[in-house]
């Protein structure tokens, strides 16, 4: 079984690499580095600590303690020594690595006019390993693609529920199936673009706007690229709601995801509820981690009627 992706290992300090290289990466989703705390792997089956020789331990005092040098060197490798070029990323609190891997940062926030300007003294890094799972959307595709074309679909799932993985595969299958898809990849997680070129397979007819705010990005794609389908991850803002409504009215189909454990929770949110009631979406699919991230729990139509439901257990 393969280890962690080279794009991730190459951005960690050399002293940590041998241990991580000997770990089978399957099942692990995150590598956590926090100053003074044990080197931690988090995955489907919970957390384990890692010793430098690559052995996984459950007692934290047997694990390797992350030093401030480790975090500093890792950050330098991740930013290529160019923090100045990543001001926007530092303001948002995460970086994207080539291959769609995402690095969250913890540290001291520097404020300007009451909003976060940057993070200084970064003391913790949380590396989320992106996984491209071809076929992750197989169960969903029959509900989304029908005789009348692609149906606008909202994917709901709790955090780490596999939304991004399923959306990526859905986009790939729809794009390869003959539709022009415009993808707004604000966090570079869907396509994992490096210098604008997608590193993950998002389909042959997909135009990717990398690192672009979703509302603006959707508007730009609609104006410039003539998509039949637009897709973006994690909607929830009012500007996004408005532009997705516009897209729907213009006959463009919308694929999107949002944080929510189920339809009831989503409807209860102000903006998300308004989007759902506006009728933009013809399908709402709920995912969970029950049988691994991306488990399809239920599919409803735009009116909320259940079309398909997996029996629990």
């Amino acid at each position, binding site marked *: 079984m393969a280890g962690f992706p080279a794009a991730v290992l190459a951005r960690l300090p*050399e002293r940590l690499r041998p241990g991580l290289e000997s770990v089978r990466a399957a099942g692990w989703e995150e590598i956590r580095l926090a100053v003074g705390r044990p080197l931690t792997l988090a995955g489907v089956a919970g957390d384990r600590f890692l010793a430098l020789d690559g052995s996984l331990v459950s007692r934290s005092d047997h694990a390797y303690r992350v030093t401030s040098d480790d975090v500093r*060197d890792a950050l*330098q*490798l991740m*930013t*290529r*020594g*160019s*923090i*100045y*070029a990543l*001001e926007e990323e*530092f303001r948002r609190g995460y970086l994207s690595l080539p291959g769609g891997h995402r690095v969250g940062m913890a540290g001291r926030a520097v404020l300007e006019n009451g909003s976060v300007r*940057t993070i200084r003294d970064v003391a913790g890094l949380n590396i989320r390993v992106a996984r491209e799972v071809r076929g992750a959307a197989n169960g969903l595709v029959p509900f989304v693609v029908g005789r009348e074309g692609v149906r606008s679909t909202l994917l709901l799932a709790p955090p780490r529920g596999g939304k991004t993985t399923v959306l990526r595969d859905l986009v790939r299958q729809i794009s390869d199936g003959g539709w022009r898809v415009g993808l707004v990849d604000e966090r570079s997680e869907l396509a994992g673009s490096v210098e604008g070129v997608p590193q993950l397979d998002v389909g042959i007819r997909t135009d990717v706007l990398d690192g672009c705010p979703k509302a603006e990005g959707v508007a730009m794609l609609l104006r410039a690229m003539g998509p039949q389908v637009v897709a973006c991850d994690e909607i929830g803002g009012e500007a996004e709601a408005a532009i997705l409504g516009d897209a729907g009215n213009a006959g463009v189909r919308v694929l999107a995801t949002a944080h929510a454990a189920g339809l009831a929770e989503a409807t209860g949110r102000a903006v998300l509820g308004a989007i759902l009631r506006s009728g933009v979406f013809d399908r709402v699919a709920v995912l969970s981690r029950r049988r691994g991230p991306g488990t399809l729990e239920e599919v409803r139509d735009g009116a909320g009627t259940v079309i398909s439901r997996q029996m629990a257990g």
Partner: protein
Amino acid sequence: MVLLRVVGAAMVFLAGYSSGRVLSASLRRRPGELRDLQAGFGLLDTEVCHGLTPLPEALARVGRALPAPGGRVFGEAGRLLESGTPVSEAWIGAVEAFYPSSAWTGEDREAVASLAPVLGRSGREDQHRHLLLVRERLARQEAEARAQRDRYERLWSYLGALAGVGVVLVFL
């Protein structure tokens, strides 16, 4: 016999004169090298603060645009960085590698090396400030280097020539 003496005397004189020139060479080269360095940091400032070019590329570009030894320092630092060396080590390593072939004084080297702990490690405005400071410092040292050159360059040449004449007289 006389001809041989004249040729020998001329050779001794020339040797003295050119050793004076050699001794004054670093005096002559230093202002230009300091000016190159300032231009280099100016370019780096543009790459970093306006182009937002990643540091390895930014350094490599400056390295290509600048004559040696300044250009070599930037180029080498960029190469070390690309191969995974931490920024501060890469910068110090590059400075130390090319300092011996330069006309810089210890003070000049220190001004250049002072960037090691800060290069790339903060936001744009902060980087701009650091780069500006180094350029100002180098500009002051360049002015001083010019004054020194004007004062001592001819002195060294004359001393060399005089030494040559002196030796010739002793042997005659």
